């Protein structure tokens, strides 16, 4: 027994102790599956997931030559990884094993009879089997690391990163602006003032780097370009001597970028002479010596709007204060801090502070101190008296920013940046083993403000991460994840839509005729969100091992099997599905007429999949994602909003109720709310009744399906999808209403055109205008308009018979 694809699918039903077996008629289910031609082998196991069960699975796979496996048991989110791991040795890779949650989506959540629950389980299993049958597994892609690791950007973390790489035996090349590494320490206080106590260790690191055979230094100009993918990058630099730009082939890139320390403004009294910032203070100490008189360090980060930097500023102030007092006992040093800040000293440092005579004076943070000549006025937080702090030299906290040097490099690297923020990117990690580019390669205070020690630590950490991957690659064991997107270069026209809406930054331009066009996905960066593939107007992107075709197959099989009042749902692993799982785990009962299919993000649902559901007989389709702004793939949720909107418009054009498709939000920790959502939708659709499967309705649904696959429609839809720089959900369309009207116009046109094309291709004979209009039950005018355009575009031909125009599809 096998199916069209020639694959052999095994289905295993799990009894799960008392949690599935007595509640679901597993015997009947097994019998039905045994008769299904799509299923090669079916068996029931007491516990598929325990050691005995797993060895049963492996034996069955080997004995029957199975190459796809479905376990009808419990949560895929929890157990699929175990099954995949245990079955890899039996020849089944990620994507070839699937699970249906018979326990927590069927057995535990309603009071249906065991036979009825088996019937529901059967439909869900059939859908999963169809999805597995439509899978074309890919060969594991080995990732090679070609060339050394490049450390660029000029930040001080370069040295700790290089040291770490060298200690792990990984070759690296340092792209630096100057050959004199001793010089770097001289100017270091411009980025990290008050850190001289760390310079000795830094010099040791630099010496070790200088002597290492694994490290090569090259002097470069500016970074002008970076292309390629993990394991094989081309970094282009300008030549400082004015020659042609130089390209370096490297395997990975670590960007060490230091932020800039600016001075405070005149609103704090800064004048560059007596009221100065940390960097100026340090310069002054080393060129002119320690000033005499009263030195006041004011940790004014709270007042400058950045309380989070007060710790760093006070540590730097402490270091400079210590130097001053130990070298110039006549100088009085006071550190003046907002009372909301705790003194950042350890016990030993407090004692030292006392001995050195450095006073720490808190002020009431609710009253901003005012700088006057010779005094700073403030309010004592304990006595509430307003006092004055005398000063001869006032040293303010620095203003920290990314700096334009770092920004230039960041831009070339494709790291987006917004004013007032630093370069650190916080993205939801959807695969903990994910090789996220930004996490690995960025080190230094441009990433987020930090001190010298932390900057070096970041460099070490980035290097350790890269070294581990490089070592795995060197052993020939580095493989790309399986469910990542890939571009079919023959279909890609380089429009760049995918790159604009992608949230992980994995889509890379490659050299092509006429300049760079995005045609390549770095599989080590792609998070598998799939919204890119769902948006591509030409279906040039595919999510490997997790394709739109598979989802269509699942949806088709399920929709065909649904009863008149049952609805289809897609739940994402982070939102809807997780909430449904938790509802089942808690044994909460709800309306069993909802059938849920699993996706990792609803953003990967191509409108084609949604259209297919209706085409194959679904009366309602619910998409349940994460709560607003919480999408784990950043914008998958918003993109789904736009796609659902498209479907609603098309349903309306067909004359069907728009409420048959809906987007919803579920918090995984609120299963009761999810139940409310599910039941509301089920009753909503039940009240509408099914879509009658009349020839007219079927013709319209086929037209709907063709329309969502039309390139022009997908283009216009793509233009409205939320981009990462848009703040507003669901999309920052300035003229939403106007866009809506325009889009509706496009849809009406394309809908008719699609139906005309479908009709002509199915009938294989010339049609007159009146026949076409009658068959489509539309007015002649819009049909005529479409025909004229289609003739003009060469899609259909026009010929005259008996003086009347006839239209025929062009082959």
């Amino acid at each position, binding site marked *: 027994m096998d199916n069209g694809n020639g694959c052999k699918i095994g289905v295993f039903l799990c009894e799960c*102790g*008392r949690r599935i077996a007595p509640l679901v008629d597993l015997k009947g289910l097994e019998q039905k599956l045994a008769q299904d031609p799509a299923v090669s082998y079916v068996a029931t196991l*007491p*516990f598929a*997931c*325990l*050691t*005995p*069960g797993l*060895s049963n699975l492996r034996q069955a796979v080997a004995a029957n030559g199975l190459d796809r496996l479905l376990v009808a048991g419990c*949560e895929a*989110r*929890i*157990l699929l*990884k*175990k099954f995949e791991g245990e079955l890899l040795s039996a020849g089944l890779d990620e994507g070839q094993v699937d699970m249906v949650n018979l326990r927590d989506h069927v057995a535990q959540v309603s009071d249906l009879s065991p036979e009825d629950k088996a019937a529901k389980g059967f439909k869900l299993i059939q859908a999963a089997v169809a999805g597995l049958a439509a899978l074309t597994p890919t060969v594991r892609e080995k990732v090679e690391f070609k060339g050394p690791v490049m450390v660029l950007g000029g930040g001080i973390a370069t040295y700790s990163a290089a040291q770490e790489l060298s200690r792990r035996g990984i070759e690296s090349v340092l792209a630096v602006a100057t050959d004199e590494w001793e010089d770097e320490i001289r100017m270091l206080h411009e980025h990290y003032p008050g850190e001289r106590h760390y310079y000795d260790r830094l010099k040791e690191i630099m010496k070790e780097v200088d002597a290492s055979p694994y490290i090569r230094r090259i002097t470069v100009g500016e970074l002008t370009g970076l292309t390629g993918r993990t394991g094989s990058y081309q970094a282009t630099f300008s030549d400082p001597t004015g020659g042609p730009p130089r390209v370096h082939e490297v395997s990975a890139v670590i960007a060490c970028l230091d932020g800039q320390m600016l001075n405070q403004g005149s609103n704090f009294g800064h004048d560059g002479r007596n009221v100065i910032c940390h960097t100026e203070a340090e310069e002054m100490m080393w060129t002119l010596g320690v000033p005499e008189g009263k030195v006041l360090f004011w940790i004014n980060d709270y007042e400058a709007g950045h309380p989070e930097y007060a710790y760093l500023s006070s540590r730097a102030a402490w270091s400079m204060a210590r130097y001053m007092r130990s070298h110039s006992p006549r100088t009085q040093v006071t550190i003046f801090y907002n009372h909301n800040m705790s003194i950042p000293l350890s016990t030993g440092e407090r004692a030292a502070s006392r001995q050195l005579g450095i006073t720490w004076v808190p002020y009431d943070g609710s009253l901003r101190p005012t700088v006057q000549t010779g005094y700073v006025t403030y309010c004592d937080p304990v006595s509430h008296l307003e006092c004055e702090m005398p000063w001869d030299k006032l040293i303010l906290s620095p203003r920290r920013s990314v700096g334009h040097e770092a920004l230039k490099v960041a831009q070339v690297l494709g*790291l*987006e*940046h*917004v004013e007032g*923020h*630093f*370069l*650190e*990117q*916080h*993205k*939801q*990690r*959807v695969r*903990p*083993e994910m090789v996220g580019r930004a996490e690995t390669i960025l080190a230094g205070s441009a990433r987020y403000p930090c001190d010298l020690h932390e900057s070096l630590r970041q460099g070490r950490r980035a290097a350790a991460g890269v070294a581990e991957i490089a070592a795995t690659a060197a052993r020939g064991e580095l493989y790309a994840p399986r469910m990542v997107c890939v571009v079919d270069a023959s279909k890609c026209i380089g429009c760049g839509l995918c790159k604009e809406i992608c*949230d992980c930054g994995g889509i890379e331009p490659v050299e092509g005729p006429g300049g760079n066009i995005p045609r390549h996905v770095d599989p080590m960066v792609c998070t598998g969100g799939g919204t890119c593939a769902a948006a591509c107007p030409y279906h040039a992107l595919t999510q490997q091992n997790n394709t739109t075709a598979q989802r269509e197959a699942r949806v088709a099989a399920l929709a065909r099997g649904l009863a008149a009042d049952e609805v289809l749902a897609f739940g994402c*692993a*982070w939102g809807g599905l*997780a909430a449904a*799982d*938790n509802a089942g*785990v*808690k044994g909460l009962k709800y309306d069993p007429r909802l059938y849920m299919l699993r996706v990792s993000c609803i953003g990967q649902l191509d409108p084609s999949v949604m259209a297919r559901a209706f085409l194959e007989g679904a009366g309602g389709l619910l998409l349940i994602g994460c709560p607003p*702004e*919480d*999408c*784990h793939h*950043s914008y998958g949720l918003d993109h789904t909003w736009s796609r659902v909107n498209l479907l609603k418009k098309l349903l309306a054009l067909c004359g069907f109720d728009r409420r048959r498709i809906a987007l919803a939000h579920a918090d*995984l*920790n609120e299963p009761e709310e999810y139940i409310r959502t599910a039941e509301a939708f089920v009753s909503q659709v039940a009240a509408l009744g099914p879509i009658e499967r009349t020839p007219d309705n079927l013709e319209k649904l086929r037209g709907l399906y063709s329309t969502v696959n039309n390139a022009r429609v997908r283009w216009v839809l793509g233009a409205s999808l939320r981009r*990462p*720089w848009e*703040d507003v959900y669901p999309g920052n369309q300035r003229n939403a209403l106007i866009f809506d009207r325009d889009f509706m116009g496009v849809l009406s046109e394309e809908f008719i055109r699609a139906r005309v094309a479908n009709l002509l291709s199915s009938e294989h004979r010339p049609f007159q205008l009146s026949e076409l209009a009658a068959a489509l039950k539309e007015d002649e005018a819009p049909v005529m308009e479409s025909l004229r355009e289609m003739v003009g575009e060469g899609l259909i031909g026009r010929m005259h018979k008996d003086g009347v125009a006839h239209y025929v599809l062009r082959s």
Partner: protein
Amino acid sequence: MIKFKINDQQVQAQPGWTVLETARQHGINIPTLCYHEAVEPSGACRLCVVELREGDWSKVVISCMYPVAEGLNVYTDSQRVKNVRRWILEMLLAECPASKEIQALAAEYGVGSTRFAVHNPEEQCILCGLCSRVCAQVVGANAISTVGRGVHKQIGAPYMIPTDKCVACGCCVTVCPTGAMRSRFDAVRGVPKVVLAHGAR
């Protein structure tokens, strides 16, 4: 093939199986709380104890980790075993009075009340550790662990503040045998950050 007996019934097992797995494979039910098929067993709850008899002598061991051996004589529901389970459940009733799942399980063994002092009437966490094991072994995020020890032991993220190591997958909530993780979840995941260095957050 390793042959031994459970409840006087002959069973067969392979090397590497545990007594619990063998029992389940043969349809014999043994209650568990801290056991989950997706992670390594930890033996924390002791509810899965079984009695091993050899002549006049018997001992109770936890079946979730006890390896199968030739000639074992296992009893899953003897008086001694039932007694151990009742003690455990009675202590759990005092530890987690708010948990419906514990109450139901205790009722199955005829335990309706507890003689032990109740310190926190709202508590549901039985400190089975499933949440932190799932986070480490299945998800790989290592966001949470047990914190403190003895009577002060609890589950939390480092420094008891939301951590961005948490990927908000909710696996901990799904495997939690009581409702405890539901109430702690927001203290661990905080607010998911979706900032590409853009936008308000």
